[in-house]
C-alpha cells in the first residue's frame, strides 16, 4: 500500500495492493528527510508499506527522490548518518520512530540488509572489491553470516542460474560488462532470500534478454512471497504487472494506485513508457531522416580490426584493460575481423547482448584501445601512431558510465576541459554555453557534477562531447539512465549533429531507440559485426 501524505489523511489517493490486508514486512512514514548539507527536504510526506508478495513500482523522473527513498528503505542511508528523518521506519513488525534528535534509535545495517535486499543504481558499488571471482562475490554476504559451505555452494549455484551468470562464476567481477554487473548486484541482494527486494533503476544497461530474465525473476520472487519494490524512471512492461504504482515528484508522492487507474496523465512527462517492441522515446519518434547515398570517402573506417585483452599478470589480481598487446590466445578475441565504414551525416547503431564487446569496439575509434590486427582510419588517416588525445579532436566519445567521464569541480569547467586548447578561449566559451543549452543544463553551470541527478550527469557527459563538435560522435549506451526529457534532448542532439555532417556511432542494447534513431543497425555477436 502506498499513500501520499498519510500524515494529512485524505489529502491523497490511497491504493491497495493485491495482498493488502497482510501485515507489511516493510513500511515507512516519512514526514520529511533532509540531508545534512541540504536546505530543502529531499523527501516529505511519503508513506509506503509493502506486504509480503506485493509488487510496487515507484515512478519518478531523475532527481525526484527515488534513490533517496530506496536507500532509506534498504537501510543504506541510516537516519542520523547523512541526514535527519522525521517519521518512522517499520521492519517485520518493529517500528522505529525518528524525530531528528539525538535520542533517535540507531539501525543496524547488517540486520536490515538481511531483511531488505537492495540493488543500487550503480551496480559496481555493491562489489566488495576483495573477492576474486563472481562466485565469491555472491557468497560474500553469506560468509559474513556464517552460512555453512555446502549451503553456500548451493545458494551461489542456484542464484547464478537464476540470473544467467552460471558460466561467469569463475570470472573476475571487475571484468564483467555493465549488464552482467547489474545481474551480479541483483544476485548479491537476493542470495540470502530477504523478504523484501528494492531495486533502483534495474532496467538500465540490461539487454532485452536480461530484462526478460529480470521479469521472470521478479515473478518468481513474488510467488515465493517476497515483496518487490522497483524504483524507475521508465515504465517497462513488467511494471504493468505491479499491484501499486506510486508517482514520486520533487520528493513527495503525487499519485498512487493500481496501474489501471493511473493511465491518464498522472505520470510526469519525464517518466517514459517503454515497449520493448516499439521505439523508446516518449515523444512521437520521427523515423530517421532518409540519408543520401553516401558520397565521397567515409569519415571513419575500421578494416579487419581484431582485439583481445592481455592476460592478467598474476591470478587473483585485477587485470589491466590496457591497449598494449600482451600474450594473446585466439580464443580470448573480443573483436574479430571487424569492418565498418561510416560516412558524414550517417547514424549507425551497434547492438548486441551484454558483454558482446560493444564498449571495447567504441574505444578503438579514438585510440584508447589499439587493435592487435587491422586498422582504424579517421578522415582516411590511420590513427595507429597518434595519441588518443590528438584523435579526440575528430572523435568524441561518450562513455558508458558518466562518472568515468566527469572529473571537474563545476559543470561549466567540465564542458570547457580541453576546449580552450582546441578552439581558443573566446570560441570555447560560446561552444560550452551552446552545448549546455542543447542538453538543458544552462542553469546548472556552476553546480558540482557529482551532485547532478544521474540523467543530468549523462547529459553533461554528452555536452562535453558535443561542445567539441567532432567529426565522429561515438556514444556508448547513451539512453541508459536518461529519463524521458533527457532522451528527447539526446535524440535532438544526435539528429542535429548528424544533420551538420557528423558521423554518429551509437552502441546500445535499446533496440527501440536504435530503430528510431539510426539509419543502419549492425549487431556485434561473438566478436563479429553483422548486419542486424
Amino acid at each position, binding site marked *: 500500500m502506498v499513500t501520499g501524505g498519510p500524515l494529512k489523511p485524505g489529502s491523497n489517493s490511497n491504493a491497495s495492493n493485491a495482498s493488502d490486508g497482510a501485515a507489511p514486512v516493510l513500511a515507512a512514514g516519512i514526514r520529511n528527510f533532509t540531508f545534512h548539507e541540504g536546505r530543502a527536504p529531499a523527501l516529505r510526506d511519503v508513506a509506503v508499506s509493502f506486504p509480503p508478495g506485493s509488487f510496487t513500482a515507484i515512478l519518478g523522473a531523475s532527481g525526484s527522490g527515488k534513490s533517496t527513498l530506496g536507500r532509506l528503505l534498504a537501510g543504506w542511508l541510516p537516519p542520523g548518518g547523512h541526514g535527519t528523518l522525521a517519521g518512522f521506519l517499520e521492519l517485520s513488525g518493529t517500528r522505529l520512530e525518528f524525530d531528528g534528535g539525538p535520542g533517535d534509535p540507531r539501525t543496524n545495517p547488517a540486520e536490515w540488509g538481511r531483511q531488505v535486499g537492495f540493488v543500487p543504481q550503480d551496480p559496481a558499488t555493491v562489489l566488495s572489491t576483495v573477492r576474486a*571471482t563472481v562466485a565469491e562475490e555472491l557468497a560474500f*554476504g553469506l560468509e559474513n553470516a556464517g552460512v555453512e559451505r555446502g549451503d553456500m555452494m548451493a545458494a551461489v549455484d542456484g542464484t547464478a542460474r537464476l540470473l544467467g551468470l552460471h558460466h561467469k562464476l569463475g570470472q573476475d567481477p571487475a571484468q564483467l560488462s555493465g549488464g552482467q554487473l547489474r545481474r551480479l548486484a541483483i544476485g548479491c541482494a537476493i542470495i540470502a532470500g530477504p523478504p523484501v527486494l528494492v531495486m533502483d533503476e534495474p532496467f538500465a544497461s540490461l539487454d532485452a534478454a536480461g530484462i526478460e530474465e529480470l521479469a521472470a525473476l521478479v515473478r518468481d520472487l513474488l510467488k515465493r512471497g517476497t515483496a518487490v519494490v522497483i524504483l524507475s524512471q521508465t515504465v517497462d512492461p513488467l511494471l504493468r504487472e505491479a499491484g501499486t504504482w506510486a508517482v514520486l515528484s520533487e520528493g513527495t508522492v503525487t499519485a498512487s494506485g493500481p496501474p489501471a487507474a493511473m493511465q491518464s496523465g498522472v505520470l510526469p512527462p519525464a517518466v517514459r513508457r517503454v515497449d520493448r517492441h516499439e521505439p523508446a522515446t516518449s515523444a512521437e519518434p520521427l523515423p530517421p531522416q532518409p540519408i543520401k547515398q553516401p558520397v565521397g570517402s567515409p569519415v571513419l573506417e575500421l578494416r579487419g580490426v581484431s582485439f583481445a585483452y592481455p592476460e592478467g599478470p598474476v591470478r587473483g589480481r585485477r587485470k589491466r584493460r590496457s591497449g598494449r598487446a600482451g600474450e594473446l590466445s585466439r580464443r580470448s578475441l573480443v573483436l574479430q575481423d571487424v569492418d565498418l565504414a561510416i560516412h558524414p551525416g550517417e547514424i549507425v547503431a551497434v547492438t548486441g547482448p551484454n558483454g558482446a564487446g560493444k564498449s571495447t569496439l567504441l574505444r578503438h575509434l579514438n585510440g584508447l584501445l589499439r587493435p592487435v590486427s587491422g586498422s582504424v582510419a579517421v578522415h582516411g588517416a590511420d590513427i595507429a601512431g597518434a595519441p588518443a588525445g590528438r584523435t579526440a579532436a575528430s572523435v568524441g*566519445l561518450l562513455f558508458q558510465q558518466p562518472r568515468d567521464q566527469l*572529473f571537474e569541480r563545476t559543470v561549466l569547467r567540465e564542458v570547457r576541459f*580541453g576546449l580552450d586548447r582546441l578552439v581558443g578561449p573566446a570560441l570555447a566559451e560560446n561552444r560550452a554555453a551552446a552545448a549546455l543549452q542543447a542538453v538543458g543544463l544552462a542553469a546548472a553551470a556552476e553546480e558540482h557534477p557529482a551532485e547532478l541527478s544521474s540523467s543530468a550527469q549523462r547529459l553533461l557527459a554528452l555536452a562535453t562531447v558535443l561542445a567539441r563538435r567532432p567529426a565522429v560522435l561515438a556514444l556508448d549506451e547513451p539512453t541508459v539512465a536518461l529519463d524521458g526529457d533527457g532522451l528527447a534532448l539526446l535524440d535532438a542532439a544526435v539528429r542535429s549533429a548528424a544533420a551538420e555532417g557528423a558521423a554518429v556511432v551509437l552502441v546500445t542494447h535499446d533496440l527501440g531507440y536504435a530503430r528510431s534513431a539510426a539509419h543502419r543497425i549492425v549487431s556485434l555477436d561473438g566478436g563479429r559485426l553483422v548486419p542486424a
Partner: protein
Amino acid sequence: MTASPAGSAPAQATRPRLSPLTWLAAAGSTAVITTAAASWPLSAAVVAACLGLSLAGGTARRVLPASAAVLVPLGLSLLVLHGLFFPEGRTVLAAWGPARITAEGLDFTGQRILLLAAVVMVLLLFSFTVSLPDLVAALSARGVQGRFAFVLASTLTLLPAIAERARRIREAQEARGLVVSRGLLSRAAAFRLQAVPLVLSLIEDAGTRAAALEARGLSSPGPRTSYREVPDSGVQRTARVVLVLAALAAVVLRLVQAGAGC
C-alpha cells in the same frame, strides 16, 4: 574478456597451491632471521633467492621496480649518513672538511643496504606472489574479524584499484584532447591533472561502498565461513610452526649476544 572454465564450480587453480599462511610465515621469518643475524652472506643469499624466485614465478617485472623504488632513495640516504659521516671510520679514502669517506663506513653502509634489500625484497616478493583471496579466506577461517581481513585485503587491492581509477580518468581526459605521450614528463603532467578528480572520486566511492559492505554484514559479529577453499596440509602446518620458532630463536639469540657483548 577472458574465457573462464564453464560449469558451476569456481575456477580454483589447478596446480597445488601453498597456503598463504605458509607464504606469510616463510616471508615473515626470513625477514626476521635476516635482520637478527645481520650477516652479509645471509643477506646476499636471501637477495639472490628472491631474485631467483621472482624470475621463476614471473613476478620479477613487478618486484624489481618496486624494490628499486624503495631501495634507491633509502640506499642513497644511508650512503650519505654512514658513508660520509661514520664516526668509527679509520681508513680515510677521501675527505672534504667534516665529511670523510672511510673504508669502514662504506663497509657498514654496504651491509646495511644489503640487509635492507633482503627484507624489502622478501616482503615485496610475498605481496606480489601470495593469492590475496586465499589470504583473506585463510585469515577469516581462523576467526580474524571480517573488518580486519577486509582492511588487510584492501591495503593490497588499493593500489591496483587506484591505478584503475586513475586510468579511467586519464582515458576520459584523453577522450577530450589531453595528449599523453610516452615521455615521463608528459605522464607526470597528466597525473597532476588527474590527482584532484582521483581523490574526490575515491572519497565518493568509499562512501557508497561502505553502505553496501555494512548491509552485506561486513561488521557482523559472530563466526564467519569461507566459500573459498584454502589449500593446507599437515606438512605446511608443521613447517609454519618451525618457521615461527626459528624466527623467535633468532631474535632470542641476538638479544643474548647483545647482552653478552655489553
